[in-house]
């Protein structure tokens, strides 16, 4: 490390004095500036931490919101024509609008509206970003969960109801446990999409990985290594989670075969 620092001092001094330096020397200097000078790698690590935290928060919001929306919409659809609950009808209508609006507008625009209009006075950009991602994800997750609930054989609901269990109990004890299994792979996918989408919160000043890279770019006037580094880190993260999900899915498939 110490020798690398010395090497850097020598070569960057050469570059500043306007002397001709080799491509290798240039590359080394830029790389050193991007990651090692002033322990900048710590900023990337911090950025990764925030990225993971934002992903986790957004996923949690998305799953809770998506679950509620899906359950209400399915319950509404499963009502008998002559026994429609007006409250359920209103809530279902609101949720339908929510899903349509979120899925029909770009995430970037949603982030800007949340960051610069609705929460314009908030300084906690990262959390506003996480909240926005969560609300966005909820719309997609609700469709995933709704699909999972509707894919459960209607005979299961009938069997539960014919035993005298009410709708909610049958949902909780019989339908939802079966839907969860079929929905988990798609939710895993949603997690990976969210992980990458966290980079978008930079536009409202959310301090995740890309934000850290931009900070370095602004100080060193060099963009190649910070951006390539960011891409590499995302790629590694995605590969790790894809691998974990694959392992998880295989275990799920195994327990399905019992």
């Amino acid at each position, binding site marked *: 490390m110490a020798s690398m620092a010395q090497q850097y001092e020598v070569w960057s001094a050469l570059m500043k004095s306007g002397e001709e330096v080799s491509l290798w020397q240039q590359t080394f200097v830029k790389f050193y500036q991007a990651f090692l000078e002033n322990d900048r790698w710590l900023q990337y690590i911090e950025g990764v931490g925030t990225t993971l935290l934002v992903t986790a928060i957004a996923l949690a919001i998305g799953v809770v919101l998506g679950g509620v929306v899906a359950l209400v919409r399915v319950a509404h659809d499963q009502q*008998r024509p*002559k*026994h429609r609950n007006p409250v359920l009808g209103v809530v279902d209508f609101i949720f339908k609008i929510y899903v349509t609006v979120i899925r029909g507008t770009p995430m970037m625009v949603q982030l800007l509206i949340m960051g610069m209009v609705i929460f314009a006075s908030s300084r906690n950009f990262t959390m506003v970003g996480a909240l926005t991602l969560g609300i966005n994800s909820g719309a997609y997750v609700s469709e995933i969960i709704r699909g999972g609930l509707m894919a459960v*054989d209607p*005979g*299961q609901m*009938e*069997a*539960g*109801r*014919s*035993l*005298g*269990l*009410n709708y909610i*109990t049958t949902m909780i*004890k*019989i339908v939802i*446990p*079966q839907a969860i*299994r079929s929905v988990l792979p798609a939710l895993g996918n949603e997690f990976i999409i969210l992980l990458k989408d966290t980079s978008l919160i930079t536009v409202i000043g959310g301090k995740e990985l890309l934000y850290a890279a931009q900070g370095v770019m602004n100080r060193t006037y060099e963009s190649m290594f910070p951006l390539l580094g960011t891409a590499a880190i995302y790629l590694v993260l995605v590969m790790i989670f894809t691998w974990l999900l694959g392992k998880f899915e295989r275990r799920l498939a195994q327990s399905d075969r*019992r």
Partner: protein
Amino acid sequence: MIVVKGLKKNYEGLEVLKGVDLTINKGDVVVLVGPSGCGKSTFLRCLNRLEEPDDGTVLLDGKEVTEKDIDAMRAKMGMVFQHFNLFPHLTVKKNITLAPVHLKLMDQKTADAKAMELLERIGLADKADAYPNMLSGGQKQRIAIVRALAMNPEVLLFDEPTSALDPEMVGEVLELMKELARGGMTMVVVTHEMGFAREVANRVIFIDEGTVKVDKPPQEFFSNIENERLKTFLSKVL
């Protein structure tokens, strides 16, 4: 014990039941037959309101079955489906005990004991901790019957309980149903098993064109055929 009056049901203009009147007494074993699409399933499902009738009433022990107290009514009317509808994520024992325990008819210990006793009776005690997809069709259907029995129902409704089974498994299910009938269980059975109707039923009912056309004890039903459409129907299935 079950009194049906003027039961009507249509699906978007298609009149399936056009006013069915029927009384099912305690201990009756009623077999419903009729051409495909004549509304046998619809009738059965209107009894426990899996389908909502458009008109008419169903009385269980003199009390009208309505949407409001439907869960309590269903607890007294067990139903056995063509495709078993066991809960695949639960063990056999849990399949049987879930509803009685949840509805506080029994505590878990009593329900477990009852489940084991019933499984013992059908020779499947060793499957108590198995999951449904480890069982054969015949075993699944017998467990589905036991699941309904565990509720101590007053009547059992069967919708083609053997139609989804491989031929070699039909016998074991019919045997269990016979045993229940001999034990005095009130049963309403939709089936194409005419042998079962002849041997076990005390009434065989022909549903056609949305109403009850023939309602006779099996000896008469099969020997003394006046209804032309029943004649045609029987000539196809016998």
